[in-house]
């Protein structure tokens, strides 16, 4: 299962709910607020939580949420709220970087497939199909098994595993645009191929892909957290949401807040970026029509 595919089905149902140019819905406002909050936490964590995310205080371990510690404390007495806030930066960065890697690679493959002739198209499409046969997360795990764990490899791994989905969409979009009347007109007018590609095809073909990428960021954050949860990404005690989830799991009966709070942060980020992505998609789709 890959992000772009799920998004593809949502594409047709979501447009019923919102019209282009209409006032934003409550869901959209909430999504934007959540994302703004997370971006703020990522850019200026000290504004929201001035404490030290790594500062220990063993005597205060396992304290339940209170005014002093809104999300409680973990097994070393670190403030979970501070850690969740400081974890936003890493999670968001991994999500954005992974999506950028996936999209960049997909652009190369997709454009090659669409414009470089039959043989190249055949080759890239077949490779893409093979990669599609493997679940994305499995692809990421294979990559990590070969290269070794760590934050950088996790990011690249997630990026790589999302690339086939984007590549397929880019190729289809370019081919669809290339068959349209205005491209024919440009060819008749004698424009050079690079100019047609740059000026006419790409701008029209890529707009929907960037909307998809908004959805992809949420998915990438979830995947990166999954890999950290498995101990393959960020290393404890780094305040990364997936790693925090893993660290809290042994104590779930005793200190639920250690897992629930970072878990909610992951859910909120992924849900907000998915909801927002779908709204944008619905709006632009209707705008096109």
């Amino acid at each position: 299962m890959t992000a772009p595919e799920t998004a593809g089905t949502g594409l047709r149902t979501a447009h019923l709910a919102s019209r282009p140019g209409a006032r934003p819905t409550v869901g959209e406002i909430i999504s934007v607020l959540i994302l703004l909050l997370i971006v703020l936490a990522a850019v200026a964590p000290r504004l929201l939580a001035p404490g030290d995310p790594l500062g220990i205080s063993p005597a205060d371990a396992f304290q339940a949420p209170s005014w002093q510690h809104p999300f409680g404390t973990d097994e070393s007495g670190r403030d979970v709220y501070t850690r969740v806030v400081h974890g936003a930066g890493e999670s968001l960065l991994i999500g954005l970087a992974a999506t950028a890697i996936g999209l960049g690679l997909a652009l190369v493959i997709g454009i090659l497939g669409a414009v470089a002739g039959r043989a190249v198209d055949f080759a890239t499409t077949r490779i893409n199909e093979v990669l599609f046969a493997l679940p994305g997360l499995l692809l990421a795990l294979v990559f990590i098994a070969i290269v070794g764990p760590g934050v950088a490899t996790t990011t690249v791994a997630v990026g790589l595993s999302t690339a086939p989905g984007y590549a397929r969409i880019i190729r289809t979009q370019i081919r669809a645009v290339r068959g349209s009347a205005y491209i024919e007109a440009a060819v008749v007018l004698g424009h050079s191929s690079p100019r047609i590609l740059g000026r006419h095809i790409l701008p029209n073909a890529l707009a929907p892909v960037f909307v998809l990428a908004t959805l992809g960021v949420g998915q990438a954050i979830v995947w990166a957290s999954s890999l950290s949860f498995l101990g393959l990404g960020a290393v404890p005690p780094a305040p990364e949401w997936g790693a925090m989830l893993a660290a809290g799991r042994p104590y779930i009966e005793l200190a639920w807040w250690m897992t629930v709070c970072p878990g909610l942060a992951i859910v909120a980020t992924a849900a907000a970026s998915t909801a927002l992505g779908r709204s944008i998609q619905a709006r632009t789709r209707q705008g096109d029509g």
Partner: protein
Amino acid sequence: MLRAPHTFSLLGSIAIVGLLAGCSSTTVTSDEPVEGGVLVYATGDAEPDCLDPHVGGNYPQALLATQYLESLVSKNAEGDILPWLAESWTESPDGLSWEFTLREGIEFTDGTPLNAAAVAANIAHLKDPETGSSTGYLALGKVESTTVVDDLTLRLDLTAPDSALLDSFSMPWLGIQSPTALERGEEVNCASPVGTGPFIVESWTRQDSITLVRNEDYSSAPEDAAHDGLPYLDGIEWRFIPDATTRYAALQSGEVDVIDNPQPNSLAAALDGGEITALLAPRPGASNRIELNSSKPPFDDPRVREAFVRAAGVDEGIESLFFGTVDRSYSVLSSVEKEALSAPEYFEGDLDAANALLDEAGWTERDDEGYRVRDGERLTLSFPVSTNQSVPAEQSLFEQLQATTKDVGFEVILEPLDLSSWYGALFAHEYNLVSAPYTKVGPDVLRILYHSDSTVPAPSGYFANLAQLKDSELDALLTQASETSDPALRGELYEQAQEIVLSGYYAIPLYDQQNNYLLGPDVRGVRALPTVSTPTFHDAWLAR
């Protein structure tokens, strides 16, 4: 200078808590053992690569080998040596020659008789570099040759007297295997070792479980066993469940009967009462320590080592992470060893002293992240952590150590690794700090851990002297202690030796090696063998 408190003997510490509590849910209420049934054991220790404990020789292998192999001698709860496969033994007056007489009429489960030649073949197997033995190989370091005197009598000639020889022979890593089985080659023998024990390895599904069935001809129970005859159980299903939370959930749901390596909070709950009971069995030999690699910078400077030890406050963390189930240790030896020297004065936290020592050692500047720098190089320590051997609470403790030592300017880089990558990091000397459990019966473990000879890798590649301590005075003390049979003199020599290790800041003792088992409500008669505290199921039965 204090001696470690050993107010309770091994007997007292192996407490079976509330074994008979919570019978109401079961149909059997009498204490008469019930025959039959398969006990499900779930281990959190790593799955061995090889079930023959001669190869390598780690604790996961000992846990399993206790079920199908037996040793020449055993120990009772008071720490006295008991006859087991060997009926009697004599030591020559100069200590250079030993004669062991074996019990008569015992057969391995493949029908091969137990005789002097069989034991000689086992010793040869352990000493053969091809076997790749570590624990057993080191334990037999002084055995020079073996001679079959008669069918049941074997003579060992030593290069030097060895006061730890009987302790060594009591360990599961020196379990006696069928020589016929050993001849099948390593690959076959690793999958199905053959011994004289109460159970037989029937099959092994990798990454899942091992099926053990009852040895229907079993006749060699040690004399401290609760009964003599066949095991009550039909067999044991030995499952590998590496995740502590999953393991405990499986025990709670009744899917498994016994688990090892429980989370401290689960253990604390079991000690508070309820249907699940706890069997506490601290391992002998060494305590859990963090070793400081003195062979390379920055720990080649004793001032830097002392600074690290003074900055590493772990007391509060041990208390809160282990829910009061463990005591802080100030000795490199387990509290069950009566020779253990406890020296809290070397481990008193003192940040000012630590800062002064680092200044003195030339680490005077700090970079913008607060870490100390000398000649443009950061005061960085690499700390590979075995996620198979360090429970989550211990890993959290290391994270706390990282935070506390940062205050004085150390940068500790924690690297959580699986067992083989971790061994890889150690073999390549890519560590400044490491916590490696080592279990050996008796204080002679000090020789294994801190004699300069142990910086040389054993055939398995492992070197036990991870602190890389090379001190000729210490070597002399440890050698002398292992050659003397006078207990008072031995105690004195071991005390001096420990004084050198502790005062040189080569190690930070944490606590006894945690070795705890949780038993489900139906389980009866499980005890830990007093040698290296592995559980034995010969007397175990299921009340259901």
